[in-house]
């Protein structure tokens, strides 16, 4: 009787492992900083994170089109995005853009834009006792 139970369990574990591994393979997205993106210059869709550079945010009125640059402190990356942005989105905020880097236009075409909530737990005041 033990084999009756062990074998289905092994099958279940194998199937689930295969499910997890293959799902990772087909849905994984590389996550780069701006500098890493320039170093890799990927052909495929990926994610880039960086802070929105001051005085670079342009939003064409009456459209969903945004243009801005993000930086990791070392290099700057121009980003183009069409869609809705979250309420926190503004210059200086950290974002994660997912999309493709266009090597000809030298601009990152973002399909989605995630903004990082400013830390709830970071102390913004510097006059502690």
């Amino acid at each position, binding site marked *: *009787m*033990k084999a*009756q*139970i062990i074998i*289905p*369990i092994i099958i*279940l*574990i194998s199937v*689930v492992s295969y*499910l*997890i591994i293959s*799902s*990772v393979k*087909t*849905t*994984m*997205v*590389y*996550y*780069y900083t701006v500098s890493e993106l320039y170093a890799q210059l990927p052909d495929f869709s990926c*994610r880039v*994170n960086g802070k929105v550079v001051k005085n670079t945010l342009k*939003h064409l*009125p*009456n*459209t*969903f089109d945004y243009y801005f640059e993000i930086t990791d402190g070392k290099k700057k990356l121009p980003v183009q995005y069409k*869609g*809705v942005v*979250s*309420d*926190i989105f*503004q210059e200086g905020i*950290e974002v*994660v853009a997912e999309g493709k880097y266009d090597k000809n236009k030298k601009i990152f075409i973002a399909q989605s834009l*995630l*903004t*990082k*909530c400013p*830390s*709830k*737990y*970071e*102390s*913004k*005041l510097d*006059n*502690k*006792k």
Partner: protein
Amino acid sequence: MYSLSYNALIISFILTFYGIFIAISSSLKKKYNLLESAYNTFIAIFFLTTFSVILLIRGFIADDFSLEYVALHSNRALPLIYKISALWSGQEGSILFWTWLLLLYSIIMIASYKKKYLELMPIVCATLFVISNFFLSLLLFPANPFRILKEALPDGQGLNPLLQDPGMMLHPPTLYLGFVGFSIPFSFAVASLITGNLDITWIKATRTWSLISWLFLTIGIILGAKWAYIELGWGGYWAWDPVENASLIPWLTATAYLHSVIIQEKKNMLRVWNMILVVSTFFLCILGTFITRSGIISSVHSFTESSIGSFFLIFLSFILFFCGALIISKLDQIKGKERLESFLSRESSFLFNNLLFVALAIAVLWGTLFPIISEAITGEKITVAAPFFNKVASPLAFLLLLLTAICPFIAWRKASAKRLLLNLTYPIILSVIITIILLLLNINSGWVIAFAFSIILLGSSIVIEFYKGTKARQSIKKENFIQAFFKLIIKNKRRYLGFIIHLSVAIIFIGIIGSSFFNEEKEVILKKGQSTHFGKYIIKYNHLFIQSDSNKSSVRAVLDVYASDTLLTKLYPGKNFYITSEQPMTEVGIYSNWKEDLYTVLVGWEEDETASFKFFFNPLVNWIWCGAAIMIITTILLLL
């Protein structure tokens, strides 16, 4: 004054060491008076911590902006109720609140079990003291809620507007009541392992606690999803974000545990499995908190990286190695003598149910931790997002629904496949009919068909179980159908209320499938007075208007929603601008009914009141909230 509250925490911290010592002594010497001393220590620590909590709340109510925590999370104009709930809005205060809840749970447990389970109680107390010790150490070192500012601010920075909402107010407390609650079954399991009292006692003692914790965790997760849907304005309710996953993973193992203990109670099997499950659930609660607070995984809810992460890692490693070693060393004693007899049996179906839940928990955990793992191994950070989680969750959820449907018809010990299919004939026929109808309606997404089949199978099998049970009761007692129906439930609450909870799961999945596979969205720019089509609706944008009070001002759009020439409703999506916050907050306008939600977001506007909107169409989404309400109410009935 706040040095008093900090000192109270220091004393509590020192007392936990005393508590650990005295509880272990009580266990070794088998002296009850030492145990009583441990009980009294809990009471002392509880009062000291309550004192600290009261002082912190007082700081909020009195607008005392000399206290850094109050200055960061409150302001004068904040409504009183949110000043109080600001207690758990940030790192330090929420840990203080967690610690207080842990001590509250401990003294309630002690009060209910004073002289019972005397063999286990000493080590139960010792374990709870260790856990309290950890959280108090956080409060003393990296997360001190009583830091004083050099100069008190004239006004505070205010509470994050996203938290100024009743649902969001309750979301952390209910989640904590869930997470913290699992400390009790965990402590009993550890006591069981150490004392060698490995039979059903520890499970019987913690049955109610486990269910209560599971209930609160469920409520917390649902509140989080509903709040995300209503407040965040992205049209959805679950993003598979690391912080969301952190609460789901222990919920999955806890649900597995609630099922497998039934097998140990009835058949004395799965004893090792239950030990591992309850330890894992507690471990995952702490791991979830670690993921949420340490910022170790960049998520949309990111928090600051601070030394708090190292404290957690040490504690987590300690739990893992200590409990792992305990279980492995006592493996032979834990194992029961009974063995699973057949692949097709009620016992094995519970085991497979558990394996599926744990598989799902592992898959979600893997996806959540993947960025860290990939960076550690390959040097490159690789993330997975919603597509990964949906891909792994779909087949596992489908199998779980199927299993839930057929399990009541599988006999104990050794079932026959023939009997099983015979009992399921009507449900199978009904499910096939419905799936054929769906195919004829041109709905041919594989997963929709699969889920529809399993959901109908589940629903109809439960209806049949109730019908059979009521009829069987009627043939013995002279009761009418309604009487027999209710008596049936009351006389076997666990079984029949359990079935209703399963039914609520089916209802929730109807909502999930509808809103995941048939949803639509549209982005559009409209001039004042302009209309647009969206599905069967015609939406007319009239104009904007502004409102303000001392706490905030808001801009709202007036939308008229028509369907087939009748005005259905007016919606007012817009944005709130809080005085204390840099960023605006989205207020969505939703038109809800049982069939769908029309969900409207005001994205932006220009001076001439030309506005940009995003509309979402979420079919059947309210079935989720409805099913969740049934699940919660039924669990409460089960506890009564």
